[in-house]
């Protein structure tokens, strides 16, 4: 009798185990199927767009003289990397552009963070400078590039400056908002424990604003690259922007597109590095829903 019940139980739990395993396997299969279809869709979209472009220009429905052609872009990429340009190899030019963008990014971020935290923590300063910052934000800052080039010549400095100006406002507004969102309870708590204003900034304000600041860096690097490129197009002796403006003068859309591809790769790499920084600095954050469902 006893043996019978135990065997029955064992059999029953065996069935339950098997069902559990089956369900897990089915779940995994569904997951694999879903990922496969996502990749099929992605590759399909790329083939459709690039293939369509190639086909339309090859058939003559769209003039490749104005709009370029994927195969032509590839050729000019190969040309840029093997033969180089009239202003030295592509690596030299790319290095200069990246340097300008990076220095501008650094300068703009540091000033943006400093001003954002200062104005964010002082109601008086915020009231005094608030309207001016709004005015500065609403003028078309990209035009400042012309002034910088007239004032500082064709060197690296005016490009860094323009990139920094574009980056500054993005980072500034985020740092400002970040400081405003600091939990007043936390501030009261450390002040009661005897923290000096500097310690409050170090232990509460800056780490708390960091979430906002880091979120702004993604957009900020894009702006830095735009600033450097536009300044180079306006006037330069080296750089990817100069290659672009030269290609424009030669009616060579393929080289313009090729430069766009190169810059896009640089931006993607920078984006990846910023994401790594974000992950290491913000590892205390609870995983958000959107990250779990990663789009």
């Amino acid at each position, binding site marked *: 009798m006893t043996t019978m019940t135990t065997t029955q139980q064992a059999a029953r739990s065996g069935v339950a185990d098997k069902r559990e395993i089956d369900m897990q396997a089915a779940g995994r299969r569904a997951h694999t199927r879903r990922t496969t279809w996502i990749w099929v869709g992605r590759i399909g979209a790329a083939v459709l767009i690039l293939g369509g472009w190639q086909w339309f220009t090859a058939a003559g429905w769209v003039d490749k003289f104005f709009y370029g052609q994927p195969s032509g872009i590839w050729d000019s990429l190969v040309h840029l990397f093997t033969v180089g340009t009239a202003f030295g190899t592509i690596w030299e030019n790319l290095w200069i552009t990246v340097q300008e963008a990076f220095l501008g990014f650094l300068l703009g971020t540091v000033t943006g963070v400093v001003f954002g935290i200062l104005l964010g923590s002082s109601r008086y300063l915020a009231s005094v400078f608030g309207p001016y910052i709004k005015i500065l934000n609403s003028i078309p800052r990209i035009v400042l590039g012309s002034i910088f080039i007239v004032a500082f010549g064709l060197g690296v400095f005016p490009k860094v400056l323009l990139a920094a100006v574009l980056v500054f406002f993005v980072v500034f507004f985020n740092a400002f908002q970040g400081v405003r969102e600091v939990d007043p309870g936390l501030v*009261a*708590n*450390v002040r*009661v*424990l*005897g923290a*000096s204003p500097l310690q409050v900034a170090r*232990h509460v304000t800056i780490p708390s604003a960091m979430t906002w600041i880091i979120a702004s860096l993604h957009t900020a690097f894009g702006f830095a690259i735009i600033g450097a490129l536009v300044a180079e197009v306006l006037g330069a002796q080296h750089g990817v922007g100069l290659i672009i403006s030269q290609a424009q003068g030669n009616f060579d859309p393929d080289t313009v597109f090729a430069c766009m591809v190169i810059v896009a790769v640089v931006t993607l790499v920078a984006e990846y590095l910023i994401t790594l920084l974000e992950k290491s600095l*913000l590892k*205390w954050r609870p995983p958000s829903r959107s990250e779990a469902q990663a789009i």
Partner: protein
Amino acid sequence: MGEHRPQESAGSPGTVAPARIDIVGLTKRFLTPKGETFTAIRDVSLTVEPGEFCAIVGPTGCGKSTTLAQVSGLEHPSAGSVSVGGRLVDGVTNGVSYMFQTDSLFPWKTVLANVMMGPILLGTPRKEATELAMDWLRRVGLTGFEDRYPHQLSGGMRKRVSMAAALINNPRILLMDEPFGALDVQTKAIMQTELLQLWEDLRPSVLFITHDLDEAVALADKVVIMTSSPGTVKDVFDVDLPRPRGDVQQIRHEERFLEIQGRIWESLRDEVTRAYQQTAGAAA
């Protein structure tokens, strides 16, 4: 505020004498954004004896939190005075710890780093502060959780961290602003019992704000009833339940508890009804 007060010898509770709190004729007015003045509390007078556990109960918006802010020195009174241990409060008071309804933990610091903040801000060497914090985590039953971040803990565990962080500096005065307000009933009872145990070890003077009359009677030596708009002290009741009180959940069924609770409720009921009618009137 920059000067560091002398550090009490680590880990030996009771080296600093608890301080007496004297609140005399305290009035606080605020300037509203429109430029009008709003009187939050008027002419509040109150004494907390050294080592006494004093609870303040009153309807919402009666200026309980404002009173605490004046004692801590975070705000300056418009009239009247607060003195702690015989010294007039001017700027942040020494030896005070605050506990709020929100956890007030640094979400970007680990549990250990959160508890260490108090000693670190006093200029204690990191190694010593770590040892002290580890000891406090043991006392609140969180050994093994020192590397977690606050979001990885339950509400009750976060409260324990807050308690350790508030008590690690061995404060003369503990200010608690509805510390257990956001907890569920069971966790609340457990935390109250643990607070009483920790308090009985250190015996700081406590000002404890709550909405919950049961909580006030179960924990405190003295219950102060405040009225609303503007906040004033209506009544003061002594709670002579014997100490140590042990399990908070069991005290609630004792006859003496019910008797005291009933007497205080008589006084509080009118205030709560009046405050409710005012808010209902404002809403209509």
